[in-house]
């Protein structure tokens, strides 16, 4: 009992409570009796179901391992993948060259101006020479462009070549990739040929003046087991090390998971498949100019990895299973939160539910019933909005938690439910609710300012908000976009994401550095409005305050219009 002898249940506040309760309940029941309410809420559920099926699809697809550096391909068809050929230093565009294939070793040559111009023996020759042959290897062949001489042997095993014994010297000299028959001039039973190109044989070679001849031998061919192409998929993952002296022998022991709690910085990365180390003729690569060849430079700020700069061909083929699943998952959560919740549901629910909150009562003539009660018109607006919010807000938060739960169960990771996701989804629900409040109060005011044309005003505002929201996703730093409600709600999501998943900056950096192309950076960037602190908490609070002020302003505008309006 208070001093005037009234029981506590009869104070001004409880009376206000009861009035609020009655109007909120009335508003909710009215909204429930309208088909358009069910249509817009139903469409929202369908949209989310559709997005979830897309999600299931994308999760399955992206988990297939991808050969990011393409070294599982066998370009020349010799059965050895590019990665293995690189390791053995062979060329993957020549089917004759493969790991273990015989290699030509040059011995010596006769140059154009050497004094001694003869050589004898069983060799592999390249060049021009008058060759008195005791044996010729007719099987020494290769591609035509490699200038192998075709001896054209007949059934008896003697070459059938053009007879050039009566040719001019210039004509003989000018042939290439070919040989001609000069006959057995000295009568020792051995035929002399003029040969130009590549050939193998035993005999006595005389090199004409001004020409050259080179000779050598081919090593024995060694059989090297071709590795399956799968070995060159995901073979160079992201390596991080505990200590900075990662070039120690036991580097494997120092390896840690990269997206760990411990914030990495400094030189990391290991060229697992050796393609960086063997590049540049074995000199390696230092693209990031940190003085260490074939490494990845991780740059941290305030304990968060903000940039990753790698040398070419290092950690270039990471395991998709391990990384892209997480990246796609986060991209999905953020993308759905921003596009589907804040921009689509955030705009359409208020457009359908809040525009007529007060206006329709005036038009229906039922306002007389309500306003003949001791209730202030401003109170009436606030309670109506509260009723609208009770339906739309609980719908949005419930929907975000349901979609969140489903994607948390479907999402990557060993645990059954990714509990860490739920704060993000709650943040999405709250950000969307803030949007519902802001648009709700704005559209309601529009309906009051112009009962007839308010809907067109709302559509114009809606288009503006949609555009600014889209721009804010692409570039949150663009100042003009901050003159919109959606921009601040999207900032709330950016901030919530960073609070719930502090390593998202690192994931975004990894997405860019290791070319996962998950789209995370397209949908998420660190919050902008941190007042120079780069603190996600301040950005969240800041956005919350801005959205609240916008809502209060529009409620005030609606109140001013409504209080002055004569109701006929």
């Amino acid at each position, binding site marked *: 009992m208070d001093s005037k002898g009234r029981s506590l*249940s009869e104070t001004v506040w*409880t*009376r*206000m409570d*009861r*009035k609020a*309760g*009655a*109007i909120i*309940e*009335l508003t909710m*029941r*009215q909204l429930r*009796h309208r088909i358009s309410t069910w249509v817009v809420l139903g469409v929202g559920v369908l949209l989310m179901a559709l997005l979830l099926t897309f999600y299931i699809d994308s999760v399955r697809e992206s988990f297939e391992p991808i050969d990011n550096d393409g070294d599982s391909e066998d370009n020349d068809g010799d059965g050895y993948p590019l990665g293995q050929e690189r390791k053995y230093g062979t060329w993957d565009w020549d089917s004759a060259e493969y790991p273990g294939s015989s290699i030509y070793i040059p011995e010596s040559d006769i140059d154009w101006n050497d004094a001694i111009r003869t050589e004898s023996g069983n060799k592999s020759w390249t060049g021009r020479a008058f060759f008195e042959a005791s044996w010729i290897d007719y099987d020494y062949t290769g591609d035509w462009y490699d200038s192998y001489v075709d001896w054209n042997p007949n059934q008896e095993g003697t070459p059938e070549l053009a007879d050039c014994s009566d040719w001019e010297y210039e004509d003989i000299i000018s042939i290439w990739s070919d040989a001609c028959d000069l006959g057995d001039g000295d009568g020792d039973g051995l035929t002399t040929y003029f040969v130009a190109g590549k050939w193998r044989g035993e005999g006595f070679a005389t090199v004409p003046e001004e020409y050259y001849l080179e000779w050598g031998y081919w090593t024995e061919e060694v059989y090297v087991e071709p590795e399956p192409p799968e070995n060159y998929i995901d073979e160079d993952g992201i390596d991080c090390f505990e200590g900075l002296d990662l070039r120690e022998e036991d580097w494997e022991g120092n390896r840690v998971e990269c997206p760990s709690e411990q914030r990495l910085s400094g030189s990391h990365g290991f060229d697992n498949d050796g393609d960086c180390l063997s590049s540049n003729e074995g000199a390696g690569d230092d693209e990031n100019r940190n003085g260490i060849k074939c490494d990845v430079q991780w740059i941290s700020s305030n304990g968060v990895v903000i940039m990753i700069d790698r040398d070419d061909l290092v950690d270039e083929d990471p395991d998709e299973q391990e990384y892209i699943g997480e990246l796609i998952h986060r991209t999905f959560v953020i993308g759905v939160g921003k596009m589907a919740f804040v921009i689509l549901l955030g705009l359409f629910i208020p457009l359908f539910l809040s525009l007529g909150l007060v206006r329709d009562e005036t038009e*229906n*003539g*039922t306002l*007389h*019933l*309500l*306003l*003949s*009660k*001791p*209730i*202030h018109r401003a109170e009436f607006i606030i309670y109506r909005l509260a009723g609208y919010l009770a339906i739309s807000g609980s719908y949005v938060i419930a929907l975000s938690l349901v979609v969140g739960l489903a994607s948390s169960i479907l999402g990557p990771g060993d645990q059954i439910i990714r509990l860490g996701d739920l704060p993000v989804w709650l943040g999405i629900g709250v950000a969307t609710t803030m949007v519902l409040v802001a648009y709700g109060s704005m559209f309601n005011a529009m309906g009051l300012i112009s009962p007839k044309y308010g809907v067109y005003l709302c559509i114009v505002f809606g288009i503006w908000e949609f555009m600014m929201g889209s721009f804010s996703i692409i570039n949150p730093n663009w100042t003009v976009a901050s003159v919109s409600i959606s921009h601040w709600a999207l900032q709330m999501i950016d901030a919530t994401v960073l609070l719930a998943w502090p390593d998202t900056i690192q994931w975004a950096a990894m997405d860019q550095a290791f070319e996962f192309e998950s789209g995370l950076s397209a949908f998420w960037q660190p919050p902008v409005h941190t007042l120079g602190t780069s603190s996600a908490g301040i950005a969240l609070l800041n956005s919350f305050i801005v959205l609240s002020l916008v809502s209060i302003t529009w409620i005030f505008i609606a109140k001013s219009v409504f209080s002055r309006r*004569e*109701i*006929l």
Partner: protein
Amino acid sequence: MTIENQRPPAVLIDQVSKWYGQVIGINDLSLAIDGGVTGVLGPNGAGKSTLFKLMMGRIRPNQGSVRLFGVDPWANTSPYRRVGYVSESEKLYEWMTALDFVSTLARLHGMTREEANDRSAHVLDFVGLSEVMHKELGKFSKGMRQRVKIAHALVHDPELIILDEPLHGCDPLARTSIMSVIREMGEQGKTILVSSHILEEIERITEQIVILHNGRLLAIGNLHAIRGLLDKHPHRILINCEDPRSLAGLFVSEGPVFGVRFPREGQLEIQTNNLSAAHSILPSIVVKSNQKITSIENPDDNLESLLGYLIKEGS
């Protein structure tokens, strides 16, 4: 002397004018009403609804001031705690049951859900709707809807009740029941304002009337006192009886009558300058004539002729 002793009247209209663009709704009207049932009479467009909307703070006077219990209803909602208002608008929440409707509105007075339900059931019973209070309003007849509106205006036990054309469009049975409800409320000591454009309706409810015409106050006071003003105005009384001629003789010899006519068989028309005197001797003449009178009508005693006369007097 305490403040209670200087209690302001329930309704105080002080030199109020209200116009809508070029059209004048209320023109320099002054009026104070406190206690009893008052009928607000006037033809359509006389300004009755405008007057009520001014009282309920729906519209704002262009000139003058409106006070309910001493408070400006446009600026302050506090008088509505003590006022019940039945607007002329027919619209209700069709999907609600009568009980739901009345109790939802009752809660806007700060009642708890239980209080509101109890009170609503009570007032619905009072207006004779207890049997249908769980039915949806969409299924209600016009007279039932009017009674639901009255119930919602009564639910918080107001001191002042404003009813804008509560009998409009009702069938005779509904009229009778609504009229008895209004009379009963008047007997409970409430201040009641009822508007109508039909004199007979008001006459059956109250004798205290306010007559509006073209936004002006034409007359205020007791219906019969106003009618007394009409005495100089020739008035007709139509009597249906067995022998009009003998009755006419009696009137001419005894009453303040300046002429008689026999418009139809078995009907007598008396023309008088003093209606109340004629009415006062009427019973004794009827007794004297010793014949069966089937009906007595006052064809000039309607709003139109009253207004016509008052306007002529005023000019």
